[in-house]
């Protein structure tokens, strides 16, 4: 790979890995969700995200040109080779925590895909346009839940406010461009994260206001996921997710 291809590969891993890890996290609710309807809804969102991850990682493999397909990239890389944003690997916590994590991601994911639907790269445009329809539903659903819990009972309000307070420091990373984002923005391939951040802030302000939640003060933001520096949680997620294909590499569905 030349330098540009290397950057595209990194960029696609970030898109794919964030979707994949969040999808894996959400899947852990199956069999444990508070009500049947939420279990189905969570499973649907998880499947959407894993499906999108498959497309992004497939593209990454094509650009790398080393014979790795989406499965190979998903199951045979270690934590330091993963490029997901840290928010995606936060534990599920209670249902308010899962919903807030989802909302903060969806509110970023939607404007991101909107921009990518106009990418200079046709393959990225196609995946983004297809994913956008799914994510439009995700963000509507998670926004409604944030409002319902925030403006609900005392207990639901306290729990979702606590989730917002705890997760806030993991939101800066996905909205802050680094040199890969910058280089690919100049070639018209990547999304303009400043504009994504603008849309994100606007939606988060609107929804939290309606939910009677208080946005935490500007504080220090965690970062590193996009460069492969992860929290202690990712190793456990991968251990569970990758066990079967690593133990039985020839296993077929």
């Amino acid at each position, binding site marked *: 790979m030349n330098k540009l291809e290397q950057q595209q590969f990194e960029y696609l891993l970030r898109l794919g890995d964030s979707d994949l890890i969040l999808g894996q996290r959400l899947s852990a609710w199956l069999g444990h969700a*508070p009500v*049947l*309807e939420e279990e*189905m*809804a969570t499973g*649907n969102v998880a499947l959407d995200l894993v499906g999108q991850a498959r497309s992004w990682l497939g593209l990454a493999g094509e650009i790398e040109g080393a014979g790795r397909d989406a499965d190979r990239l998903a199951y045979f890389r270690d934590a330091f080779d993963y490029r997901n944003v840290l928010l995606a690997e936060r534990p599920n916590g209670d249902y308010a925590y899962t919903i807030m994590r989802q909302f903060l991601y969806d509110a970023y994911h939607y404007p991101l895909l909107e921009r990518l639907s106009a990418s200079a790269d046709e393959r990225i445009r196609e995946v983004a346009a297809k994913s956008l329809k799914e994510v439009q*539903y995700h963000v509507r659903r998670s926004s*409604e839940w944030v409002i*319902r819990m925030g403006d609900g009972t005392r207990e639901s309000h306290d729990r979702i406010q606590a989730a917002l307070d705890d997760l806030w420091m993991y939101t800066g990373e996905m909205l802050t461009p680094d040199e890969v984002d910058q280089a690919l923005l100049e070639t018209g391939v990547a999304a303009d994260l400043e504009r994504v951040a603008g849309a994100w802030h606007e939606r988060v302000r609107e929804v939290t206001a309606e939910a009677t939640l208080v946005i935490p003060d500007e504080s220090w933001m965690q970062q590193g996921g996009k460069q492969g520096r992860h929290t202690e949680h990712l190793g456990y997620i991968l251990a569970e997710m990758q066990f079967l294909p690593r133990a039985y590499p020839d296993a077929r569905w």
Partner: protein
Amino acid sequence: MSKDWPLWEVFIRSKHGLSHKHVGSIHATDAEMAMNNARDVYTRRNEGASIWVVPSAQIVSSAPGDKEMLFDPSNDKVYRHPTFYEVPSDVENM
């Protein structure tokens, strides 16, 4: 938890069907959630083109005890059923 959530009846119009058909019920606290849940529970395999959700409490149903009164009288009047006509062969759907 779900015992506090009202029940809603779900009607789906499929891509092939002309009218909405009752497919089942879901629990939800409000209309938006009912619509989302109906979508998530009943249209995961591309079944739907349109969804109606109705609070179950709003549906007025006939009482099982009224079955004879409501439905039996039409049974012994064969002239109510259009079985004495010959359907022209050009008519496809009757």
